[in-house]
């Protein structure tokens, strides 16, 4: 329903703006590689794929390597641990926001993977987060597990020594 502003106040005033909300529902076909990855997450497993050409390991797997242009079929199971290569402290409110600010999003490079993904960092003060900090996954309760990265509630520091920049500089 169009929500007509202004004209309700003065019938002769020009209509300068109307709000017309649109709802969109869609189906998403994950594909084979992502499906295996998501089913793995439900069993608390992180399943990546290795490129047969450059040998880099994709997490999440995409079924192909964009650099080499070849399918990635070899599956690799990786531990639910890694490092924060870089991060952002989000302190800006916006419509539709799901997480209370301030929160920290980090690029997580799982041990043995060659590409990072974004996830939440918790059980650590925002100002204590560091590049190279070692982190581990905190899984959802069994009843809350879903086929997706949301099965990981967040990542938290392991307390181990930070990785030196030299070790991960190619990933930032």
């Amino acid at each position: 329903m169009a929500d007509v502003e202004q004209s309700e106040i003065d019938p002769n005033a020009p209509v300068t703006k109307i709000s017309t909300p649109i709802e969109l529902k869609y189906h998403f076909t994950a594909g084979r590689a992502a499906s295996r990855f998501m089913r793995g997450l439900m069993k608390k497993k992180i399943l990546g794929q290795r490129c047969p050409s450059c040998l880099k390991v994709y997490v999440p797997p995409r079924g192909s390597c964009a650099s080499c242009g070849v399918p990635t079929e070899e599956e690799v199971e990786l531990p639910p641990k890694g490092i924060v290569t870089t991060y952002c402290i989000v302190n800006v409110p916006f419509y539709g926001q799901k997480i209370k600010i301030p929160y920290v999003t980090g690029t997580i490079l799982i041990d043995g993977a060659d590409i990072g993904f974004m996830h939440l960092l918790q059980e650590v003060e925002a100002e204590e987060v560091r590049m190279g900090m070692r982190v581990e996954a905190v899984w959802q309760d069994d009843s809350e597990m879903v086929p997706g990265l949301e099965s990981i509630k967040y990542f938290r520091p392991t307390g181990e020594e930070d990785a030196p920049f030299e070790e991960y500089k190619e990933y930032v």
Partner: protein
Amino acid sequence: MGAQRCAVIGIGQTKYNSVRDDVSIAGLCREAAIRALEDAQLGWSDIEAVVIGKAPDMFEGVVMPESYLTDALGASGKPIIRVHTAGSVGGSTALVAASLVQSGVHSRVLTVAFEKQSESDAMWALSRPIPFSPPTLAGAGGYFAPLIRAYIRRSGAPSHIGMKVAVKDRLNALKNPYAHLHLDDISMEKVEESPMLWDPIRYLETCPSSDGACAMVLGDEKIASASGKPPAWIHGSAMRSEPTMFAGRDAVNPRAGQDCAKDLYSQAGITNPRKQIDMAEIYVPFSWYEPMWMENLGFAELGQGWKMTDEGATSLDGDLPVNCSGGVLSSNPIGASGMIRFAESALQVRGMAGEHQVQDCNLALGHAYGGGSQYFSMWLVGSKKPN
């Protein structure tokens, strides 16, 4: 390569503002288009084709602007094409328009790009959760902040560089009557004290939300040579793209941007861009992107871009003035922001940039990027006809 010569012969901009509720989107685009036609001393009937660009559909809910705007842009009975490359769209729209002239298909083409952020919520549109992932997305800043942090770590740049760019571009904007932000009291202290929105990006180190449109008329060699005002001749143009995510990607210094610049320079015979190019209008939505793009564009060695900012090389009186118009940091109608860079570089070589004119400007770079730094479009325009 057999391309026909092409030049910018008319430029029109609206005043950029946070809310333009006196006009519809169509009215906004028409305002820029009429100014471009007036500058070109041409009428609607002289235009053979129209090429338009805007930001992604969710930004303002207009899914088919090429249909909605046909009438307002005088395109009835003519070809109209819409171009679609996220934030770089203003640049790539201009390049598609230029290609219609360079190919010899048309002799006079109108190109328009726009955004009416006040009728939309780009922050919301850029923060939609990705299926099967945690809802961590927080606008463009949320995506670019970690890359800026990575740049600072890699280059060892001191923290004041981002603030310095923020001040420089706002001071430049005071000389540009079209700029959205006119912050008379901008200072390093003001920037430093502004809230940290996406640590390490502060409020005053980010771009505003603007309404606005930019238009250009492009003509072939015959039309441009007969023009009553100086044309801006296209000396080179290039576009490149790359996937957002792949193993081995350098998202801070993307390969697509480097390749795009190399292609551009080779077309124009540029071997030393910093010496041979007189000024650059580049897409800097967050202040740290100035030094980052200085390196990506080959103006500085890897890790050294911040020194150009620090030494004042990119100031209006520096050896490579960057964003003399105030840049994206001072006006950001997203879909138009790339075209404004292209138009401002053309204004400079035409000697028509007014108070923010660079002296003896003969060759200028217009640059735009978009998405997760995966689309790049660039052109080089000159006061003289290319060989």
